[in-house]
């Protein structure tokens, strides 16, 4: 059986058609075939969260889906949600609160937190920590990240 697959999908709102190796993960496809390197590759077994992307409106591990499965899907990466301005308050708050240092986890962290803020806008600090429990950050100790979420939503509420 052929070890390649033809796929059609939208990435950040734009139609993409490619022929991919069946084993190519969705995040590798985005990085190497589409050229969007904002989604990072860390552990490649679903533990670190660096590859978090949005597929059909929900965050997923980009390393635990093959690109072939994204045929017909609506995929959003950090590049797309940055460009639309959807997460600008959160990004500003990350800068303001020093919620990143090396930045490797940040794209995944932002997409994860954007989903939390949409699903549970009033999440407590404990709930914020639980929601990002699948996203490793080795720089910040998470405190500043939780602060940034609180800051972003306060700004959202007052705007």
């Amino acid at each position: 059986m052929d070890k390649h697959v033809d796929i059609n999908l939208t990435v950040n709102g734009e139609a993409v058609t490619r022929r991919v190796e069946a084993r190519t993960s969705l995040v590798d496809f985005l990085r190497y075939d589409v050229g969007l390197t904002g989604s990072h590759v860390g552990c490649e077994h679903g533990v670190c969260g660096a590859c978090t992307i949005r597929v059909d409106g929900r965050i997923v591990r980009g390393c635990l889906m093959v690109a072939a499965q994204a045929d017909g899907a609506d995929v959003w990466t950090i590049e797309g949600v940055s460009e639309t301005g959807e997460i600008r308050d959160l990004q500003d708050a990350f800068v303001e609160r020093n919620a990143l240092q090396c930045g490797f986890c940040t794209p995944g962290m932002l997409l994860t937190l954007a989903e939390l803020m949409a699903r549970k806008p009033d999440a407590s600090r404990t709930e914020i920590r639980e929601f990002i429990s699948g996203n490793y950050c080795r720089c910040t100790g998470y405190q500043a990240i939780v602060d940034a979420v609180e800051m972003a939503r306060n700004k959202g509420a007052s705007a």
Partner: protein
Amino acid sequence: MKPAPFAYAQAETLDEAFGLLAEYGDDAKILAGGQSLMATLNMRLSEPELLIDINRIDGLAGISDNVDALRIGAMTRHVDVETSEAVATHTPLIAQAMDHVAHPAIRNRGTFGGSIAFADPAAELPACAVALGVTMHIAGSAGERDVAAADFFKGLYETAIGPDEILTAVSVPKIAPGWKSGFMELARRHGDYAIIGLAAHVEIDGGTFGAAHLVFFNAGDRPIGAPQTAALLNGEVWSEELADRLAAALKDELDPPDDLNADGPMRKHLAGVLVKRTLSPLAGA
């Protein structure tokens, strides 16, 4: 790491999937949510020739109310179980467990049936399935059959699902009046696999325990029930002395393995801690 090359087929129907399973045998793997499978492929712990994706087969996802039980389709995503009002109302043990099944991004993709069919002894849902006495609905080219949870888990990653069969749904009995459920696990990081965990389903009337099911996970090669310890609850009210007796009984009844997170004796100790922390709130203590 990157997985070894494989071919990929998107099955449109169960029959198509059964046909591919028959043709490829052990060289094929069923791809459901993929949240365990893709990790094992990426680590090259497994190198199948073919992945049979069952995500697009109609009728495998969704939760329906069948009077005495909730029928949860095998391809129902964890997040949809987690946010289901029917699950929260009728199967509180499952509802309590969902928050501990990995992390949000994984729950968005991983499936209820996949977690049960994969039969990781450290996973939450197999233990809940045994504690609640669910019924597994399995289909193959020869037809459909039902298997009780107690007969389903055969060993490490081994289940009653045959080589050319697929788990299609699980029927979870609704909680009966007078019963309560409790769920707890001890893990290094919220959402990681537990060092040890407990799914408890107990009958309790005005503070007095009746029948009880205590099922531990990551305590052996499959969900491990503790019926002798559970029987000690019958007719008792909660007390520190009872907690101590239960903990002592678990040390005799359980034989958990050693691994890098904890050795057997530590797991036995933690089993007693879990029973105490899980049951005392159920008793209102």
